[in-house]
């Protein structure tokens, strides 16, 4: 079930340069939501028509609280970053499929890159098994480090080498000889492509959360498609709707 909800902002902080952490109260959405799903956030400035899809970072099922961690990248997200406690935002959600949780992996590896790090926080809470998180950052400003460490062993990579492994997430995986039976990842396309290749090479399962410009966010407009290996049951062509059939796909289902 999807809801349109007027969510009240409880708290907003800039936790890294241009990265904002937003806690909202959204009972209906939180009740239904699971890790890897996202919400559509609507601008109050009416000249910006399209919702901004933002991944779910944390859920507090008991209090109906939702945490979004997003980058203020354009005018819409900059608008959101200006709101504070007591302000409201229109949300629609929860949207998308979320990560698979019941596959029985023993040593899942959760990999987040940049603004793909936030969904790993809630995923680490829900996923059973002996969990490891690898997060890729630009520098030693390791946002969400504490939250990620609570439910998993955390390794980091930084582009400038100021913390953890110098390089990217794959460098950190290799340097630390991390063993896993399944990868769950969200981040920039080059990272996802590299992880897909790595998983194929290791013969392990791999789930990737994709991103694309969206309009409706609910599967109607066919703006945010990705290329699929086979003809998709819904579209009847070789593509899948990221907002509805994804954003999480098994790596072998899709072409990157």
């Amino acid at each position, binding site marked *: *079930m*999807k809801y*349109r909800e007027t969510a009240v902002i409880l708290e907003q902080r800039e936790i890294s340069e241009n990265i904002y952490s937003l806690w909202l109260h959204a009972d209906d959405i939180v009740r239904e939501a699971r890790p890897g799903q996202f919400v559509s956030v*609507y601008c109050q400035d*009416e*000249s*910006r*028509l*399209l*919702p901004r899809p933002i991944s779910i970072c944390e859920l507090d099922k008991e209090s109906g609280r939702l945490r979004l961690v997003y980058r203020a990248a354009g005018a819409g997200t900059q608008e959101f970053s200006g709101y504070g406690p007591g302000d409201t935002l229109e949300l*629609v959600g929860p949207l998308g499929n979320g990560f698979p949780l019941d596959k029985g992996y023993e040593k899942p590896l959760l990999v987040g890159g940049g603004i793909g790090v936030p969904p790993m926080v809630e995923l680490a809470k829900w996923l059973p098994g002996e969990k490891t998180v690898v997060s890729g950052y630009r520098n030693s400003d390791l946002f969400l480090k504490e939250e990620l460490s609570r439910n998993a062993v955390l390794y980091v990579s930084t582009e400038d080498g100021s913390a953890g492994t110098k390089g990217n997430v794959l460098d950190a995986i290799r340097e630390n000889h991390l063993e896993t039976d399944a990868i769950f990842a969200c981040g920039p396309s080059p990272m996802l492509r590299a992880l897909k290749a790595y998983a194929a090479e290791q013969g392990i399962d791999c789930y990737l959360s994709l991103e*694309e*410009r*969206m*309009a*409706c*966010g*609910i*599967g*109607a*407009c*066919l*703006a*945010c*498609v*990705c290329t699929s290996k086979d003809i998709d049951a*819904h*579209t*009847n*062509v*070789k*593509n899948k709707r990221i907002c*509805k059939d994804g954003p999480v796909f098994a790596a072998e289902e899709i072409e990157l």
Partner: protein
Amino acid sequence: MMNMSVNLAGVEFKNPVMTASGTFGSSAEYGEFYDLGCLGAVVTKGVANVPWPGNPVPRIAETKSGMLNAIGLQNPGIDVFIKRDLPLLKKYDTKIIVNVCGKTVEDYCEVVERLSDQPVDMLEINVSCPNVKEGGIAFGQKPDALEAITKEVKRHAKQPVIMKLSPNVTDITEMARAAEAGGADVLSLINTITGMKIDIHRRTFAIANKTGGMSGPAVKPVAVRMVYQVAHAVSLPIIGMGGIMNGDDAMEFILAGASAVSVGTANFANPFAAKETAEGIRAYMEKYQVEDIRDLIGAVE
């Protein structure tokens, strides 16, 4: 007793609010938010004789008070549409209008024929999509070609035919007259206006197709003007659209001469937009104590 129903080419709609093709899929996604029985009609996304994969991504870009799209008429083809989508649509107490696209006259006619024995109330012929290389707008920018395809489609169609007009022409009344001469039952306008957006930081086009169709409130004054012109040029009923966000916007089109309206891009800004537009029209009628919506069609002075 207030009347919101309108009659277009012998088909009775409970109210004048429809969904604009391409923004509403085949309705399944919006049906999760509200009962579509509150709408006059659902107009489906364009359906072709075979599946179409559409354009590369990015397919959309936001612009000020508007957006560009170049989806490229991706659709699952008529077989899947009839088997899977149409039965879902039938569940709702609303009229069904199927938007038909094609690359050749024969493609359009094949789809029209396939739909002839289906539970479909009207057909909307998309001769105005700016985002595909073949077909689409090629039939909608030359009066002779538009008249010819209208005639051909009418020969095959069992249901009343709506010809959807492009605003990307010098004189839209000339196109309206051509469609009327070809035997169209209803006209719908406007389709999107061809536009372009450039990402100055990456120095690339914002959408992969380079150009896209512009829609949203930014195009509304153009659309209202064209509806007004066409209403004075032909005697066919008009479905007006282009940037309608609410009941007040819809009233502009009705006063300009539209018998019905379609809500498109607004569905993205608010999944309840079409429903709320119907409620807004009702509120307008109550405010001005108008008994019959039909008294307002073309009533601008």
